[in-house]
Each structure stands twice: as structure tokens, then as C-alpha cells.
């Protein structure tokens, strides 16, 4: 129980919020925990935090490894409190930035894999292949949707989104 609390406190710094979210401190004040974003998401990507998360409880969160965000942008339109702001183009979303762990990534270890490159919705721009083999995240273009983290073949995933 205490371990769970400590774990959720540590993860508090790294919660992946739905697209269009305002910065975390402001988000916690604005979000009225109405669950409209959860309900409107056609992919059921958005989950809800429980009471162990302290005052984050009831807020929406995306767990990319379970279901990533597919950038349909339905959720900011229904948010009544401005915790999620509409974003004009999906390329301008900044949920977070993906980061590759080169020590575990298959491509960096001699096995040809292009899963993250192929699945990235900002195709050929947010993840590029260095020398046609090694995936590299272009941080300015990455929207932080988590599709790459979701499709990565290693477990734990070698590419993951750092929120914020």
C-alpha cells in the first residue's frame, strides 16, 4: 500500500496528459474531473487516476504502452474547463517527447527493426532513420503520442515518452 503510494508519487512527475493539456500545475487546478474526455475518446486511450494519486485523482492520463493517443483531437473540444486547449494541427501537439534507450533498442543492437519509424503518425519527420537503420527522435517534431512506445518490440519498451 505504501509502496503504491510512493510509486504514484514518483510517477506524478511523469504523467502523460491528453493532447492540448496545459502545464501540469495549471492542469490540476483546471481539470474538473468530469470524465468527458475519457468518454469521447474513440480509442479508449484516456484512463483515469484513482485515489492513490492524491489530488490527481479523477484526472485523465494516457498510458501509451496500453493504448496510445491517435491524435483524433476530439478531447480538447469537449473539455469545458480549458484544461485541454484545442490545437489547430496535430503536428503542433506537445504531450511529451519520445526518448530512445539505445542499449536495449533492437536496431542499435544489430537486429533490423523499424517498428517505431513505421508507426509514427508524424511519418518520417518525428522519428528518422540514421543510415537507414538507427531510429532517432527529432525532438522538435515529436508530439508525444506514444504510438512508438506502444509498438516497440522490446519489453520494457526501448522508446518511451517523457511527458511535459
Amino acid at each position: 500500500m505504501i509502496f503504491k503510494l510512493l510509486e504514484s508519487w514518483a510517477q506524478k512527475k511523469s504523467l502523460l496528459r491528453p493532447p492540448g493539456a496545459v502545464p501540469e500545475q495549471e492542469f490540476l487546478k483546471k481539470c474538473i474531473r468530469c470524465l468527458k474526455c475519457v468518454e469521447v475518446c474513440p480509442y479508449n486511450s484516456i484512463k483515469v487516476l484513482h485515489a492513490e494519486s492524491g489530488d490527481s485523482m479523477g484526472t485523465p492520463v494516457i498510458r501509451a504502452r496500453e493504448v496510445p493517443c491517435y491524435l483524433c483531437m476530439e478531447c480538447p473540444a469537449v473539455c469545458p474547463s480549458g484544461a485541454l486547449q484545442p490545437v489547430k494541427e496535430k503536428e503542433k501537439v506537445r504531450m511529451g517527447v519520445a526518448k530512445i534507450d539505445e542499449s536495449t533498442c533492437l536496431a542499435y543492437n544489430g537486429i533490423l527493426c523499424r517498428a517505431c519509424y513505421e508507426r509514427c503518425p508524424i511519418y518520417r519527420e518525428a522519428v528518422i532513420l540514421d543510415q537507414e537503420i538507427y531510429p532517432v527522435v527529432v525532438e522538435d517534431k515529436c508530439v508525444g503520442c506514444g504510438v512508438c512506445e506502444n509498438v516497440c518490440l522490446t519489453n520494457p519498451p526501448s522508446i518511451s515518452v517523457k511527458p511535459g
Partner: protein
Amino acid sequence: MLFKYFYNHLSFFRRLSQIMALIFIFAVPWLNRNGFHQILGTYYSMSIGPIDIVDPALLIQSILLTKQFYITLIFAAILPVLIALVFGRVFCSWACPFNFFVELIEKIGFFARKRIKKNVNPKPLYYWISPLVFLLFILIFNTPIITFFSMPGLISSQVGQAIFFGSIGFELTFVLIIIGLEIIIARKFWCKYICPVGAILALCRTRRTLTVQFTPQKCIRSSQNPPPCQSACPLHLNPRSKGIHPYCYNCGKCISACQKHGNALNFSFQNKKQINLKEIINR
């Protein structure tokens, strides 16, 4: 004539309204899960087609926390505020699921019966202590505490989460604890003295807001102790004396009870000065 029918069957229509409000909590997440997104939300905030609705208490909380006025949120509070200005705290007695559950349990008769003081309504001042404490808490600790203490919001949110994810959190346990306290310790203490949602709705009261009106000439001065109107009231108020506001939430049970006796109580949009029964006797 339709109005008369409604008046004579207040209890039935109120139950119907409460049941529909309860079905809403279950139906909406279920419909959302199956691809229907025209109606969304919980009793924190919902949208029906293009119309947004938000709990006015949450609007106040949001303004205090963020120090900003967000237009969408302000617009969404208009409808519930209008309803409260015209009809009073009807949300509490005609929709709120927490009140519905507590009334059901009361009907089954779990409560230790407390002696009701005759002819005494609690001082209106006591009602405003709780919302003041909540608002101060928000200002001092910067936490959205009304969200965590809104019974209709918590219940609808937990049901929504159960339907979407098959899991619920400690929030439901909190609701059950409060319901338990209502059974064991004090009846209706939450609705009467604590709930911040009702308190903000009660602020929207004017001279023309729907109220329960007493006509002393028709009163048969029942010898029952307490009289039928007072024992019908779920909040243990005395409808014959002044000071039912801000507590009264316009459920109409006292009106229905009196229809069998003198028919001295009715709903009215004109707040005629409430006369104490003792004054009539002493004239």
C-alpha cells in the same frame, strides 16, 4: 388541468425524475462505450448535444483556483443557475443520486429515530458555515476540494469509471462511509449542513424563487406530534414557520402530506411573508 394532475401526484413525478437522473449516470457511459457521443459527462459537468452544463460550485472553485474566468465554463453554469433562480434547490430533491439513496434507506427504516423538535427550524446562519470553510480551504491550500466532496459528482464519476474500466477507487468507499454516517449518527446532516453543491445552488435565491407557502387559515392544527407536514419533511423542517430557507429543497412532500388535511401548503413563486402559527393563535 395538467398542472393539477402534476400537483396531486408530486411524489410520483419526483420519484420518476430521480430515477431518470439515476439512469442517466449508467446510460451515458454505456452509450459512450458503444460509440454514441452526443451526450457526455457526469454530475461534475455534462454536455447534451451542443449544450454544456457544469455544476456552479465547480465554476466558483475554478475561478478561485485558477484566478481566471474561462468563458466556456461560465456559459456552462448558466443553465443550472437559471434553474436554481427559478425553482430553488430542486436539483437536490429531484435529481441528486446521493439524496435518492439516502431517502430509499430511510424508507426501509434503518435509522435510529431521533426526536424531532417541534416548531423549530435551524438557524439559516449555520447553513453557510460549510461553504465558507470549503471556499477558504480552496484559497489556502489550492486544492479542488469541492470536486472531492461533491456527492453527485463522485457517484456519477465512479459509475462511469466502473462501466469504462471495470474498476472503482477509494472515492466510492468515501461515499459509502458518508451514507453509513447518515444511517448511524444523524439523518440528512450532509444535505443540510455540509454539501457544497447544494450551498452554491442555495445562493441563487430571490424573492420570486419557487418556495413552499403556508396559508395559516387553512391549517387544521393537527394534534399529532410532530404534525404530518413536519414528519413528512425529509430535512425535518417545520414548513409552517419561517426560516425553512436556505434548507428547504422544494421536494413537495409537506405539500402532499397536507393535501390530506387542510391543504394549507402549496408551491408559490411569490414569497409572501411567512406567518408563525403562534401569531395567528394569539390574535
